[in-house]
């Protein structure tokens, strides 16, 4: 396993408080909520596992008196182990809301969960009953493909057809709420209209004469 201090990006001399802060920042960055329905969620999950293991190892080492820098605290290991238990990546996302209305749509869910979007698309294309669940699953495929606007439209249709369904509503809310709570390194809000309205936007110009902004191609 990699050096746990390196994993958390802190020196061995870091205090417990600094380690906790580094761990929390990384856990916030790779948190399942930040990779909701993301095609790279499996990679984030690996990162999260690595970070949890590193943090656990350090707290264990320090708790048993192996390393004595900073304030001693074996008690801290319990407080932040909680991040590890989130683990709501991938797999169970779709099945937890109950079964599908048909075996084909159930197969679509499995294909989406295993990342086989082409299969999911093919199954949906051959399914003639465009009911609420079909629209919802079409939206889920679109989202993973990066077709964000279409995803939202399919989720909207699914919600109109079955307004009481919590799964569809949640998906639509996620699209509409946007990404305001997404991870940002400075903890500032994430979004085009939330960026502080910098009135004197400074656009970098490297050298005069150079074709920085694409003179030839876009004027």
């Amino acid at each position, binding site marked *: 396993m990699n050096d746990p201090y390196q994993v958390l990006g802190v020196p061995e001399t870091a205090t417990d408080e600094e380690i906790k802060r580094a761990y929390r920042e990384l856990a916030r960055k790779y948190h399942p909520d930040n990779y909701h329905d993301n095609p790279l969620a499996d990679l984030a999950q690996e990162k999260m596992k690595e970070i949890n293991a590193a943090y656990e190892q350090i707290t264990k080492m320090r708790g048993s008196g192996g390393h004595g820098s900073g304030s001693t605290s074996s008690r801290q290991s319990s407080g932040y182990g909680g991040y590890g238990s989130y683990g709501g990546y991938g797999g169970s996302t779709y099945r937890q809301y109950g079964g599908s209305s048909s075996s084909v749509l159930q197969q679509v869910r499995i294909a989406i969960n295993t990342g086989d979007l082409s299969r999911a698309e093919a199954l949906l294309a051959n399914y003639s009953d465009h009911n609420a669940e079909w629209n919802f699953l079409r939206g889920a495929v679109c989202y993973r493909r990066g077709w964000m*606007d*279409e995803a*939202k439209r399919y989720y909207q249709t699914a919600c109109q057809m079955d307004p009481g369904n919590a799964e569809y509503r949640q998906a639509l809310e996620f699209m509409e709420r946007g990404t305001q709570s997404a991870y940002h390194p400075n903890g500032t809000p994430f979004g*085009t209209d939330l960026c502080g309205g910098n009135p004197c936007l400074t656009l970098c110009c490297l050298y005069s004469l150079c074709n920085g902004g694409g003179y030839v191609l876009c004027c």
Partner: protein
Amino acid sequence: MYGYVRPPAGILSEEELERFRRMYCGLCHTLGQRYGTAARFILNYDFTYLAILLSGGDEGPSTAARCMVSPLKKRDYLCTTDALALAADESVILAYWQLRDGVADHDWLHGMKYRSLSAVLEPAYRKASAARPAFAESTRRQLAHLAELEAQPCALLDPPADAFASLLGAAAQEVDHPVRRRVLEQILYHLGRWIYLIDAADDLKKDAKTGSYNPVALRYGLWDGVWTPECRREFTATLDHSVHMITTALELWDFGVWTPVLESTFYTGLFHVGKSVLDGTFRSIRRGQRKKRKNGEETA
């Protein structure tokens, strides 16, 4: 491409901007070495980001030389690497097809500029497409698809944006490491989507006047080129979802020395540019800066 992706100068330290400059100049020299002086004029910030993304986490060796832009003072630039060569080849292919697209979009008279520039770039393109046949072919195919969608005209945002995004995403095809390839594909795909959409938003008023195809106008019914608050909210949400896909991918690979410039560009720069485009101030800021630079040159 279009120059919407750029380092936020007010936020990035001078040291990091210098590093970006060395890459910018490195790409320029690589273009010159591989394709001759004429090809150096396709250089822009977007291609520099492509070179950064395709490079490893190290900056690599640099050297200094005088050039057309800096005939008196020697400037540091990064020496050619495999990644810079790849970025240069792909840049030539992208620039060439963009010019061809310009020829197709304009009548004979107005297409003259594009026709002559693409003729100048033709030998470079032939060489680049021989070196990277798969990328040349996918670029040609995606742009043909985009032209079909524009001719329909497609009233949805995602199909045309996908054509452009896939074209850029294919720039990661030659990356060997499977995780790195996935990360780069996602970054480039959503960067392409963002660029396509923000460019359409920037052209909203102009296209409303000329009646040209504009996917944003068609999708939201903005015939006079003016945003309604509701449509603007919806549009920024879809842009922000793409930026989020870019930043979440960025965090899954170690970009080494390039991390600060990439972080500040993706977490901050894109939002600033996006907001100024939607506020209608982007063009005037850029025009103002060009003017300032020109004045500066005259007085210098």
